């Protein structure tokens, strides 16, 4: 069984995003970029499924600028088998990403596509669901557990009230939540080995997909800033303030 894992290169989650002074976006010049944390979890899960569920090949895809190649190499160093880099002239929105992925699915015929539940830059939380819609496949979003048996994937999902388990007919789409697993670090020998794993270079045009953005960003601004309030000396003062606020009687 083949698994496809789309991975996105994003601002590292430890870096505090800075809004550009001209209000056009977030400053990405000279800052650390990494694989979207949810995608690391997706890669890790695919690798684990090699042992657990007879996965034979893991193909990773990244869509974006040429530097997204580094993100693919990271996934290859973790244990994926080969990569596909799709470069595009413009920013590609989830709908465009999903359309390109649908074409790749047609070519590669995976049984399972594991995506992150959301990319932590735009926080869209759409691509997996869109891909499932375009392909007419089942979707198991926000997964904290995946079990494969025969032609069924049983997925436990993190929902607002707790957990929900659904059975999905394969082929299917799964998106990862944080508690699915803890991703491994790539070892140095594996990082070296990853350099010689195959990586195909494509463009959005190769897939004949129109990725013209549908959404225009008019402005990006800082959120309203909260200012630090006061520190109270002790519990008595806190109780007094809470009473004054009417929170405590």
């Amino acid at each position, binding site marked *: 069984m083949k698994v496809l894992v789309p991975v996105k290169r994003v*601002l590292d989650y430890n870096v505090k*995003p800075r*809004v550009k002074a001209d209000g056009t976006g*977030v400053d990405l010049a000279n800052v650390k970029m990494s694989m979207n944390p949810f995608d690391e979890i997706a890669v890790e899960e695919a690798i684990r499924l090699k042992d657990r569920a007879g996965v034979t090949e893991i193909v990773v895809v990244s869509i974006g600028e040429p530097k997204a190649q580094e993100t693919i190499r990271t996934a290859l160093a973790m244990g994926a088998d080969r990569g596909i880099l799709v470069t595009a002239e413009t920013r590609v929105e*989830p*709908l465009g990403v999903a359309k390109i992925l649908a074409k790749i699915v047609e070519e590669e015929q995976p049984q399972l596509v594991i995506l992150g539940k959301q990319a*932590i*830059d735009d*926080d*869209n*939380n*759409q*691509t*997996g*669901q*869109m891909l*499932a*819609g*375009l392909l*007419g496949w*089942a*979707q198991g*979003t*926000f997964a904290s557990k995946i079990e494969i048996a025969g032609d069924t994937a049983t997925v436990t*999902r*993190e*929902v*607002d*009230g*707790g*957990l*929900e*388990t*659904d059975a*999905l*007919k394969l082929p*299917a789409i799964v998106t990862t939540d*944080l*508690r699915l697993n803890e991703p491994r670090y790539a070892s140095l020998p594996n990082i070296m080995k990853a350099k010689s794993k195959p990586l195909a270079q494509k463009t959005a045009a190769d897939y004949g997909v129109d990725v013209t953005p*549908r*959404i*225009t*960003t*008019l*402005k*990006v*601004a*800082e*959120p309203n800033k*909260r200012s*630090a*309030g006061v*520190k109270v000396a002790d*519990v008595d003062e*806190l*109780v007094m*303030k*809470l009473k004054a606020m009417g*929170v*405590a009687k």
Partner: protein
Amino acid sequence: MKTLVWVEHDGSAVKDATLAAVTAASKLGEVHLLVAGQGVDGVAQAAAKIAGVGKVHVADDAAYAHALAENIAPLVVDLMGHHDAFVAAATTTGKNIAPRVAALLDVMQVSEVLSVEGPDTFTRPIYAGNAIATVQSSDAKKVLTIRGTAFDKAAAEGGAGTVEPVASKGEQGLSSYVGSEIAANARPELTSAKIIVSGGRALGSEEQFHALIDPLADKLGAGVGASRAAVDAGYAPNDYQVGQTGKIVAPEVYVAVGISGAIQHLAGMKDSKTIIAINKDEDAPIFQVADLGLVGDLFKVVPELTEKL
């Protein structure tokens, strides 16, 4: 402009998040609702009473009992033949269904809308709320998920919508519901609680989490939340998690106990009206957003606070 709002319900009552979605939708024009489920007559009647609602489309079928996106999406797509926008609250159900609908309509969804600036212009948070983008959609039809805490709830009473059944599209045969573990929780639901007490990694164990956080929450009539670190360590169940990837809350009062204030946590609670932080590290980032801060060992100050309240 006619907008179709996805009604989230528990089989009998409409969820608060939907009332906020109705308010957002009303800024676009005429509001119609979709109630889907099995045995949802009561929900449909309740939905029709929501202030400002026109038509309530009701799809009653076993295929809709668990709101599986694979079954719901084709139903919505059909109804979108005569609606201009689809709006769902950004709950896990809304987030599961709306993008599938968007793709089938060939529309790029606008996620987690914070405000409606015009018929095609919205604001939304990006980078865990560290930036707010104003975006304009060029799609003919709009698909939006809206952040419940950013809109007032529409009045649950006072409307006079008309209930209209819609034919089921049936079971798509792609997925099926196996079961769920929904934590029985007598406390106020996080997304609508007026006061929330949240515990972090510093609580140290599940026993201590409950021994310290629960009595304080009881005193305040509060909901209980947690940081991801506390959830990951097993001190609290996953549905307690507040933050970028957990629940987004905006209560009157948010009490953070032994939580450092990582940006991913702040993303879920920094719109709370008053933030109170208890932390032994006076330089903890949580103090930069806290209105009231108490520097101290939580194992000492929390029991004392609970007792003195």
